[in-house]
């Protein structure tokens, strides 16, 4: 005769690993389930960009800084696809959960603000990297580009995806409606990604804008990432490492604080 004993609460150490892993898996499965939209679509769009730019400018622009134009362009396009998707992953996940009301499923379990930040951000980074690898491979078939410094490629891929994932968390927590998110994508993320040297060397910018570019994290992520492939950078690589690390830390703290105080999440 067994006596039914009520289950005792699971004991957690300093980190709720099961919870963190579960949140991460949820974030990954969320985009993997609709891979057509989340991986294939950016792949097609980015290849279209490559085709357009090579057809429109291929004749007029041979090289940038001694590098063939398409080799210059390809890493920038890969980076652009990565950051847009990393941002889309976290921001849409939080916003949709908030609007549909199932955000409580994430807020009620015993997850600390740090674990929430990490779980969401890691999901966004995963999407960024998956898209990056897919787009990168497809591009490499079309435009074989070298790989000079894999370390820089890896660092900037992860740092940039993380930065945009964190920005997506902040945006997702702040936004209350889909149009606010669309506005953020249209008026902030896309312009930054476009104007920060994906398509051209910032050396071409007027002096004021060149100075502005050197304060812009988007510029460093594209420039450093591209350096990893083609071995040519417009800006300072050391500054890039510092700026990316600092931007990530600052955004991490911000996201952490927002989760901790429950800004727009808890009544």
């Amino acid at each position: 005769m067994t006596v039914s004993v009520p289950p005792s609460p699971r004991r957690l150490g300093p980190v709720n690993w099961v919870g963190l892993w579960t949140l991460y898996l949820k974030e990954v499965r969320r985009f993997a389930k609709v891979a057509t939209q989340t991986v294939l679509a950016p792949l097609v769009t980015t290849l279209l960009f490559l085709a357009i730019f090579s057809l429109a400018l291929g004749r007029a622009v041979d090289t940038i800084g001694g590098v063939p134009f398409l080799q210059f362009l390809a890493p920038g396009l890969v980076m652009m696809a990565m950051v847009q998707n990393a941002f889309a992953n976290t921001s849409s996940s939080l916003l949709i959960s908030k609007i549909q009301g199932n955000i409580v499923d994430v807020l009620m379990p015993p997850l600390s603000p740090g674990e929430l930040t990490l779980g969401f951000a890691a999901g966004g980074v995963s999407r960024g990297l998956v898209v990056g690898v897919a787009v990168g491979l497809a591009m490499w078939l079309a435009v074989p580009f070298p790989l000079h410094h894999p370390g820089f490629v890896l660092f900037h891929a992860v740092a940039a995806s993380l930065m945009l994932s964190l920005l997506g968390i902040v945006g997702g927590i702040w936004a209350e409606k889909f149009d606010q998110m669309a506005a953020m994508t249209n008026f902030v993320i896309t312009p930054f990604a476009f104007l920060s040297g994906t398509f051209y060397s910032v050396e071409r910018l007027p002096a004021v804008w060149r100075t502005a570019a050197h304060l812009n994290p988007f510029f460093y992520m594209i420039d450093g990432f591209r350096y990893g492939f083609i071995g040519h950078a417009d800006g300072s690589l050391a500054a890039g490492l510092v700026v990316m690390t600092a931007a990530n830390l600052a955004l991490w703290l911000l996201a952490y604080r927002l989760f901790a105080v429950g800004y727009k999440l808890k009544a």
Partner: protein
Amino acid sequence: MSAGTAAPRRFGAVNWLGLRTLFRRELRRVLVEYRDTVLGPAVSGLLFLAVFRLALGGAEGADDGATFLQFLAPGLVIFAACQRAFETAAASLIYDKLEGILADTLMAPLTPVERTLGYAGGAAASGLVTGAVVLAAMLPFVDLPLAAPAAVLFFAVGGTLLHALLGVLVGLWAERWDHYSASLTFLVIPFAFLSGTFYSIERLPAFGQQAVTLNPVFYVIDGFRYGFIGRADGSLAVGLAVVVAVDLLLFAAAWRLFAAGYKIKP
């Protein structure tokens, strides 16, 4: 003084009031979100302009007299207009279907032709508004001539209508939002991007040049651009015929689907 029940409104062959109401609703539901639906495309258009300008730097980029930016700007304008028209029509129908409020238009005394006209007309009009705003935003940066206003008008209306009708078809067919974004990403945008929005098709390999002449979207972009810079890659007469024919064909298809109640009536 009779307090009888209101008599049904009488109308002739066309329910003008109903048609106008549907048209205005379709137009307004988009324009009320003007930040995303009108200003968003304007910013994207300017971004493309800036990026190409900077990527070209001092390099020539002249295409037979017209500077590259003069060539590019009309392409971006008609692209924005057509994309808006498609999105409006498709998103409206999918939204109404998923929310279960499509009954509001299906119950109203509108014929299938009036429904097609209302949805597609409102969507095309929203595309024209968007195109006009994108054009206005570009004018300070590009010195754009106006060679043939009639061509501008014809291809703007024909092109947005084409995309609006395509949007109606996709909207009727789609059952989920995935279908909508897939049709946009894999159909509408590639067609527009590869049909000469950004480059003269003379730059394509021979095979590509031939393929493009079978593509109605190419004629829309080419004809619209001709209206500004006075130079076309393809034949204008063929373009005119193709756009009219495709518009009629799509209209007939949308009308038949509405009449049959395809995916919208049990």
